[in-house]
């Protein structure tokens, strides 16, 4: 009996939520600029994901006979100072951005941030105090310095670790595959990526935990995990989505900055930050590259620019659509 009742309520709940999201989607689609922005972001990301299929060259392939050339039929966006194809390197750089964004979002904001926010807000007491104090210590650091400090000091350790794994398993290529770079960036971004989300979720949960429907669920003996994930979590999804859409641009930019300073993705693997650094005299190139061929900056910078701009527009629209009262 209880089982049947439960099932019914679940299906009706699902139906309810489906039409809610359909409504949200149709409201969002009506905002032309936001919709176009989302399409642009989607296009950029898909370029990165299918990079191996649509590349015209190898991203490492140099061509000394043809350096610093403008666009032509062979190199669609021209070549850099080593004669590498800029188009190919940009789409592979986007792939780096996609990987870093996805891992940081999932591990940091979504997994750590949401779970800790749920725990802190629901249980309060010392769990809440502990999590909040840790977060406060971390956010007392100037963001970008902390990221750079972590990346610079942890990189050699992580590379050593990867080498040790290679030695003990008799495999090679772990270090050269770029996984280490992703790991370094991921670890460096992790401390900063969860706190904002955690505070947001915590605030929502603090008001929800005393809501009547949660009290009712507790009264009929619903287990705590079920209350947390089944009753409370669905109600914090909207602000989480808004916050994620605003945060993605910042994550992408952090990777670009790290790689720009030579602390993120290592050459020859391409990253938008590495490409920018190579032209603006950070990566051993002379200033003359910037002076004579500033157009080489255009492709990577426009991608970064578009990503940040479009995610901001999307975030604004989602905020309007999902939190109509907060306007």
């Amino acid at each position, binding site marked *: 009996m209880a089982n049947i009742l439960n099932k019914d309520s679940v299906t009706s709940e699902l139906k309810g939520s489906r039409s809610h999201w359909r409504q949200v989607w149709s409201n969002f689609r009506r905002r032309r600029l936001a919709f176009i922005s989302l399409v642009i972001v989607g296009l950029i990301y898909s370029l990165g994901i299918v990079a191996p299929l649509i590349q015209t060259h190898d991203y490492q392939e140099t061509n000394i006979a043809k350096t610093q050339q403008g666009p032509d039929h062979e190199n669609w966006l021209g070549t850099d100072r080593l004669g590498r194809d800029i188009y190919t390197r940009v789409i592979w750089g986007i792939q780096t951005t996609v990987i870093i964004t996805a891992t940081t979002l999932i591990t940091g904001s979504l997994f750590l941030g949401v779970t800790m926010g749920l725990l802190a807000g629901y249980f309060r007491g010392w769990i809440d105090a502990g999590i909040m104090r840790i977060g406060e210590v971390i956010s*007392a650091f100037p963001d*970008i310095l902390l990221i750079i*400090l972590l990346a610079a*000091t942890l990189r050699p*350790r992580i590379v050593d670790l990867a080498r040790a794994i290679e030695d003990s398993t008799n495999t090679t290529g772990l270090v050269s595959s770029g996984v280490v770079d992703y790991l370094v960036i991921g670890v460096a971004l992790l401390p900063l990526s969860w706190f904002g989300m955690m505070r947001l979720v915590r605030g929502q949960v603090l008001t929800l935990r005393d809501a009547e429907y949660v009290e009712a669920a507790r009264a009929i003996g619903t287990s705590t995990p079920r209350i947390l994930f089944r009753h409370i979590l669905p109600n914090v999804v909207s602000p989480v989505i808004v916050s994620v859409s605003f945060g993605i641009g910042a994550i992408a930019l952090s990777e670009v900055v790290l790689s720009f300073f030579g602390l993120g993705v290592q050459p020859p693997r391409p990253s938008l930050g590495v490409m*920018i650094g190579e032209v603006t005299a*950070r990566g051993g190139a002379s200033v003359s590259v910037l002076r004579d061929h500033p157009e080489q900056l255009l492709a990577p*910078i426009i991608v970064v620019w578009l990503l*940040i701009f479009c995610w901001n*527009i999307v975030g604004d629209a989602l905020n309007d659509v999902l939190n109509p009262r907060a306007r």
Partner: protein
Amino acid sequence: MLVYILRRLLWTPVLLLLAAFFVFFMGTVAPGDPAELRLGNRATPERVDRLREQLGLNDPLPIRYMGFIGSALKGDLGESYVFQGKTVTSLIGPRLLVSLQLNIAASIVALSVGLPLGFYAAKRQGTKTDPAIVISMLILYAMPVFFTAPFLILFFAVKLHWVPASGWNGMFSTQAILPALTIGIPGAAIFVRHMRASTLEVIGQEYIRTAHAKGMSNFVINYRHVARNAFLPILTLLGFTLAGIFGGSLIVELIYGIPGISRLSLDAIFQRDFPVLTALVLLGSVMLVLANLVIDIGYTIIDPRIRLK
């Protein structure tokens, strides 16, 4: 509220001690022996050992940490590992001044563009001007510094020769113009956004309608009632802008060759100059924490309604 502020005040030193310990700990995790780095190619095992002993590097971490805190409280932040014989304070002082000037100049740019434009956009709500301002500001905001800095240099310095391309000579020299613009333009975009939002909020208040109803002139209403009240939340933002000079202008200082605090911290990270780095991070944390505290306390003074809660 008083209890809240007192608790904050008590927690602040603990927070700073923890932050300092974290940087200290990172220093031990970091590869490279400071003694070896300092001796360079004169490093023999005996010399390294002697220097390590001299610098106190052989002591356990907690002891070194306590020693550092002890002398830091007396205003002595130690000596740089890299710049021989220079105290950390003498390295940071002049650079802090440079960064402060740079950020003040940038804030002036940001405020003088951002506030009027945000106010104007709010006043034009419902017309096409408002979204046009908002979107063009968002475009400027999203523009990466990697783009603005090199292209401003290329255009105004290399091509037109109006201003020098790099260097620093105080905030009133021509060299300050480009870096101030580079930081100020995205900053202006943020101010526009917030000024617009808070102006809209104030315009909707009843006392504005009352002011209109009793026949006050538009000018007086706009400037005495709307703009002044709309500016209050912006103060918060300004506090954080100034506290954010640690690392905030990193790329700008690098590209324009400005000897500021961000540049120093980047060098310290790369050269493993941990005494300098610890001091910088600590200073940055102090500024952020203080900004937070002052803003919180300031709000309760400005807005009596918050005190009642």
